[in-house]
């Protein structure tokens, strides 16, 4: 080979006139990048494990935290995230089929499978947006601090609020007015601020109203932090029936602020320790950002395929390289899925 070095094409061989590991420069560098990115995600997930391992209060459980489906409400543990996982796996498959078509110089095939991959990517990003919305918004019950100082999360079906009947006039509402708008939002806001006492809600204009609400179904308390009466031990942590209802509404209607937390932000969340939501936002957000950039890169490469750039070049290695990145995103999700939702 050395004798022919003057005729070697710099496009196919590296500067040193060989191809290490028989791969092109671009492909090897993509692998090195992916290794470093994998170390980043590895570090993030391990720090999550570290925090969870040294946490002395109960850590949220995936199937209790993520149990809703769009349009159908609560009571479907892990189904939504399973769907997301499936979407990402399928889009990974369509990507590998695009790479395979590229190896046969089948331009039509590459285009078709890349478009399918892009659609899958958009579906995943959209699903993640819904997941975040739901995580931030929280459940209808929230997390409650009971009278004895114990803290519990709540499961069950929240009975719909019908209206507020004003019993004491304020700046806006007169006595006897029936409020029918923005009920749930007003209710949660008042409950968190301690503006509900014995079933009488104080509205924002200072008027007082009674709450007409349907009965809850299957209200269940799961104690996460022990108090003087209710314990977070294995046998006692689940409280059901009329007792659960009384404990919940005594606390919710106590008139004390910050007894109930709805949803999640960076300071507090209804699911568990503060760090839990922070890790959730950071890791799934960082992954979502990777998916989004993956979709953008896929679109750019797909345009190149349609324009015939790679066909003229004689090989579809660009598709292969983007494919590597896209599979990596899928790979990371496999681990996020396990550590955030299953364990």
């Amino acid at each position: 080979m050395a004798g022919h070095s003057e005729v070697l094409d710099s496009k196919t061989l590296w500067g040193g006139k060989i191809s290490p590991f028989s791969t092109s420069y671009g492909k090897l560098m993509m692998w090195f990048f992916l290794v470093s990115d994998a170390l980043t995600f590895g570090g993030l997930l391990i720090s999550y494990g570290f925090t969870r391992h040294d946490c002395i209060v109960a850590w949220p459980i995936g199937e209790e935290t993520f149990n809703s489906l769009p349009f159908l409400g609560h009571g479907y543990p892990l189904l939504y995230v399973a769907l997301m996982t499936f979407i990402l796996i399928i889009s990974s498959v369509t990507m590998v089929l695009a790479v395979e078509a590229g190896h046969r110089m089948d331009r039509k095939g590459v285009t078709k499978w890349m478009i399918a991959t892009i659609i899958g990517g958009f579906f995943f990003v959209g699903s993640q947006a819904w997941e975040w919305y739901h995580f931030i918004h929280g459940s209808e019950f929230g997390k409650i601090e009971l009278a004895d100082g114990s803290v519990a999360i709540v499961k069950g079906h929240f009975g719909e609020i019908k209206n507020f009947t004003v019993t004491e006039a304020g700046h806006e509402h007169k006595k006897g007015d029936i409020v029918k708008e923005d009920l749930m939002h007003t209710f949660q806001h008042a409950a968190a601020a301690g503006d509900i006492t014995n079933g009488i809600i104080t509205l924002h204009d200072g008027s007082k109203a009674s709450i007409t609400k349907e009965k809850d179904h299957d209200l269940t308390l799961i104690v996460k932090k022990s108090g003087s009466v209710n314990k977070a031990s294995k046998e006692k942590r689940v409280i059901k029936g009329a007792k659960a209802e009384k404990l919940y509404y005594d606390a919710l209607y106590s008139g004390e602020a910050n007894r109930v937390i709805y949803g999640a932000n960076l300071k507090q969340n209804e699911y568990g320790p503060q760090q839990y939501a922070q890790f959730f936002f950071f890791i799934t957000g960082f992954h979502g950002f990777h998916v989004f950039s993956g979709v953008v890169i896929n679109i750019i490469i797909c345009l190149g395929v349609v324009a015939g750039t790679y066909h003229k070049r004689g090989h579809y290695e660009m598709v292969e390289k983007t494919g590597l990145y896209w599979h990596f995103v899928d790979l990371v999700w496999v681990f996020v899925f396990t550590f955030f939702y299953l364990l």
Partner: protein
Amino acid sequence: MKRDDLIEYSLDAHHDEEKGKEIRKKIYKVTILLTIVTIIEVVLGAAIKQDAAIWPIIKWTFLILTILKAGYIVMVFMHLGDERKWLRYVILVPYFIFILYLIFIALWEATAIKSVLVYFS
């Protein structure tokens, strides 16, 4: 000018229709496998509570299934299984050395910190 002095710089950069059929068959097989593994994971996760006696076994099952899924994605979808042996080692060996050590040291330190927190709480 036809050159015979070039190394085929990207392994398996081209293949014919017949080989393609074979590869596609493998891809579909792996797809079905990954789907089944995901379904098993979700069913186990939804059906078995974390305070069940069997939970530690389930937990390890999840970890093994995850490694299995990851292995198939890297080796088949990312074609690392078809690359040169030494490329595989260059990618995987440093990564595993570092990550295994990091897992070990993180869990070890977390245990120590927890014992202090429990002591003072």
